[in-house]
């Protein structure tokens, strides 16, 4: 017994090693045929809950850090999507503009096909910037058959409405004097009552034209909203082109004629396309 104790104390390291290896080997030998064994199951039962808790904790922290990453990713996606939304908004605006332009051009095409006059369609490319003068430039000139004094009309409220006349022409452009300019005079008449007068502009600030020299006896036969058209009498403008509607009637006692304020059918502030009539070719 004493010898055995001395042997153990002398070879403690080796004995422990052999014992541990033996235990392991026996364990493997007895359990290698089966994954489940009673001894392993006991150990597993004890430590599985610890392992499960550890996994839960890991899952929590993993989710937490994943959430941070997710938040960063979502923010990046949000910024990308925001940019895309802005792009789409721009596209939407462009589409709306195109739709509006398309509708407008369709109306103009329809008008162009229906109007009895030979004409050239033109787009306004420049407008007079100041308040003293009113006028605009179109993108058609003598190359397209446009001459000075050619009447200019536009499609407004379903009518061929008078815009003005061409006052200056180059090969590719022309200047148009609108009827609202103070230096523009047009022979006009009431469409229903047929009373005649002389029409001139009051400037772009008012956007109105004034019809003078209308006989006083016409006062009872003229109503607000009555249409005014071109008379065609010794004029560069064809007969019965629509000009505007009566907006006000003035009949001073000291004058022998009426003065009518006419609101043009054409909205000059929004005018984009016009037609130049080729009257001389008619």
């Amino acid at each position, binding site marked *: 017994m004493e010898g055995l104790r001395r042997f153990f104390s002398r070879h403690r390291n080796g004995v422990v090693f052999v014992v*541990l290896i033996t235990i392991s080997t026996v364990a*493997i030998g007895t359990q290698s045929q089966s*994954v489940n064994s009673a*001894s392993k199951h006991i150990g597993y039962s004890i430590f599985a809950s610890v*392992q499960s808790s*550890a996994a839960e904790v890991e899952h929590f922290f993993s989710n937490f850090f994943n959430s941070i990453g997710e938040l960063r990713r979502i923010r990046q996606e949000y910024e990308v999507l925001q940019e895309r939304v802005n792009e789409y908004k721009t596209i939407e605006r462009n589409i709306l503009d195109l739709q509006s332009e398309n509708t407008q051009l369709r109306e103009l095409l329809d008008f162009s096909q229906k109007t009895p006059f030979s004409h050239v369609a033109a787009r306004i490319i420049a407008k007079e910037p100041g308040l003293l003068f009113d006028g605009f430039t179109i993108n058609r000139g003598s190359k397209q058959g446009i001459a000075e004094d050619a009447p200019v009309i536009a499609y407004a409220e379903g009518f061929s409405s008078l815009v003005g006349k061409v006052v200056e022409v180059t090969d590719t452009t022309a200047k148009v004097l609108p009827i609202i300019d103070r230096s523009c005079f047009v022979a006009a008449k009431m469409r229903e009552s047929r009373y005649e007068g002389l029409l001139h502009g009051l400037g772009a600030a008012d956007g109105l034209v004034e019809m003078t020299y209308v006989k006083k006896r016409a006062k009872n036969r003229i109503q607000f909203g009555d249409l005014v058209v071109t008379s065609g009498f010794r004029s560069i403008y064809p007969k019965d082109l629509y000009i505007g509607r009566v907006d006000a009637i003035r009949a001073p006692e000291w004058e022998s004629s009426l003065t009518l304020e006419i609101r043009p059918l054409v909205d000059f502030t929004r005018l984009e396309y016009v037609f130049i009539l080729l009257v001389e070719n008619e």
Partner: protein
Amino acid sequence: MRKKNPIIYAVILIVCALLQNSVFTSLNIAEIRPDFTLLLLVFFAHQLGTMEGKIIGFLAGLMMDMLGMAPLGFHSLIYTVIGHLFGLTRGKMYVDSLTIPVIFAIAATLIVIFTSFIIAIIFLPLRVSSVLSIGVLIQIGMHAVLAPFIFALLRVFKLCSEHETQML
């Protein structure tokens, strides 16, 4: 040379064995996972010596056997051998920051493979081919890469030092 408290090392190693299959599962390359318990055991055995090395190895292996699919005794036998062999290096080698940890890791992995192969031939003949798979090479590479970092981490927590040399 100052004696380390083996209980601390044992607890760390057992906790690592406990967490290895649940927490560190996401650290893998082609489903091959590094054996952190093995790497820790190598350095701990080197710090503690053969007796403590093989005992903590046995306990950690037992934990892994109970929680894993391996038969009871499989890891405990292998880690006992590892703990014993690397415990023999205590005080006999200067562990630098890079080379020796890498050599330790590669040597330990090769010993594990060899021991597993022997055990598989004797007790688990169906698994012999699994021991000799390409995954072994990946694991050797992973251990070689991770070993310096783990050693550096252990030094930070004063669980390992590189000056544990013994004048023979």
